[in-house]
């Protein structure tokens, strides 16, 4: 059987107008615009089989969203081929569109002024879902996401987490075979993220749908995906199992230390010092994962420590480190 998603040498180059600040620049820009080319995606290849959940990772601007948009059919690639369920996505065939969904965490498809239930009914009409099938799907989604209490309120009165549940449900009413999810958990709190994750796993198990998702949160990916694809600067950097990856690129931990006294102690002898602007009252050192216990106990023994934390480095930093050098 051929793969559900097959991408070959997919590339996208944008032309972006350059603009400077100031009045005279504005005048010049009015008459003549300068463009520069941005290679968002460069010759990317991969295959995804039916029923897989694949995490699509990369720092901001790496080309994740562009790739998702091409696969869903919104964007034409500059070069290369893609085959999803036997269709070329950007032909935008109605049969294709009825078989996929794209959910973007930062965009709304539901109308704000009316209850989600009404937007759902509109989607039923648009996707031509027969009544009985619609009811069955809705029941199932309700079971998984507990939609019912949210359905009667205007969407604008829902919390972000509640709205996201409705957005995802709205995207799944037509039982798509392929799900493209762009940051589906963005902005949600920890419990909200966990719920969506739980739902996606269950949905995948029940329906055998293929899922390709991007996320900022490492936890999303580790919880859901056995396989991940990493792109950086538009190029494919890694495609394989998540376990292999964590060995390859995430052998580090961050130890955050808050000292009881002044910061006069030099921590660099314990590990590499790392900048962290958000958390200025702590100092961070990066150490190898296997050394964490040893170094932590040394720190505790040597220094007047007020507070200590151990965490995974942020996903962006890890990728940046692993593939930039």
């Amino acid at each position: 059987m051929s793969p559900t998603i097959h991408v070959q040498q997919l590339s996208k180059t944008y032309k972006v107008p350059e603009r400077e600040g100031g009045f005279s620049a504005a005048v010049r820009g009015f008459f003549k615009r300068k463009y520069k080319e941005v290679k968002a995606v460069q010759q990317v290849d991969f295959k995804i089989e039916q029923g897989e959940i694949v995490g699509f990772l990369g720092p901001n601007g790496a080309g994740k969203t562009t790739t998702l948009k091409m696969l869903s059919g919104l964007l034409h690639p500059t070069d290369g081929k893609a085959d999803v369920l036997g269709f070329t996505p950007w032909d935008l065939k109605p049969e294709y569109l009825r078989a996929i969904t794209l959910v973007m965490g930062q965009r709304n498809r539901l109308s704000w002024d009316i209850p989600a239930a009404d937007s759902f009914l509109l989607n039923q009409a648009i996707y031509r879902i027969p009544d009985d099938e619609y009811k069955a799907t809705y029941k199932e989604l309700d079971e998984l996401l507990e939609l019912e209490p949210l359905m009667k309120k205007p969407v604008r009165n829902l919390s972000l987490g509640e709205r996201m549940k409705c957005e995802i449900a709205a995207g799944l009413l037509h039982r798509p075979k392929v799900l493209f999810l762009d940051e589906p958990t963005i902005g949600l709190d920890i419990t909200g993220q966990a719920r969506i994750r739980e739902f996606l796993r269950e949905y995948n198990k029940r329906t055998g749908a293929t899922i390709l998702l991007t996320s900022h949160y490492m936890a999303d990916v580790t919880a859901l995906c056995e396989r991940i694809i990493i792109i950086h600067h538009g190029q494919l950097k890694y495609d394989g199992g998540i376990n292999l990856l964590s060995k390859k690129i995430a052998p580090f931990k961050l130890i955050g230390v808050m000292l009881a006294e002044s910061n006069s102690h030099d921590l660099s002898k314990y590990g590499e010092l790392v900048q962290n602007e958000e958390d200025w009252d702590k100092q961070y050192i990066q150490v190898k994962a296997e050394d964490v216990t040893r170094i932590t106990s040394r720190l505790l023994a040597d220094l007047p420590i007020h507070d200590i934390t151990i965490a995974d480095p942020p996903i962006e930093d890890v990728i940046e480190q692993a593939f930039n050098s």
Partner: protein
Amino acid sequence: MQTLKLLSAFFKMNVQMSLAYRADTVVNILLNIMWLGWELLSLNIIFSNTETLGGWGLGELIALLGVFRLVNTLMIALIWPNTEKFNQSIRDGSMDYTILQPVNSMFLVTFSRITVWRFWDLILAVILIVVGINMADQVTSAPQVLTFILLAITGMIIIYSLWIVLIALTFWFVKFDNNVTILQALLDAGRYPATVYPVWLRIIVTFIIPIAVATTVPLQALRGELEAPQILTFILVSIVSFFLASRIWKAGLKQYSGASS
């Protein structure tokens, strides 16, 4: 059949939306009546100073006002709200969702918003037309009434096509979100017979932004001033312009997805 189902789904959704804003709906109806009052007052002022305007009497101008309000309903009940939604969806990216729906996107963009209460304007318009014709003491035959209706429809199709072209331009010039202002602006020219305008303005409202084609022309048909070839030309033009508009819309979508760059 599917299309009708979809239309009724849109209609239901929009009824709900306007119910959510009941008080606004009432206020808007009051404002609408106020403007009708103003329009009649302004006709009264004009005709207290003259007996004819561009060769047309008061009754004919009232009928014209009715036709104008028909076109205006098209503008306000469909074109305005959908343009707003369209521009918004370009700005916030929800256009992506529109394109990914398995329905003709031009259809979706045309009907996703309907200012439902505006339809009562149609009743007002018909009353104005009937009263106006009676006041004008015109002997009107059935074929004349039929060509009148036919030409009012073709006129509106032409305006609709122009609208599609104007919003499709937004795909090329993203910041072009005053795209229909020009249409709405010149619409006001439809309140008076095109014959009173200086030649250059008459050319604009007939050929460039063809408001007069939907207002003055149907009324001329009602007065029996048009010959068969002219009527056929208008019908032909409306078909061609609709066809062209949908081609330009498709090209715009291609531009949006980067297929043409």
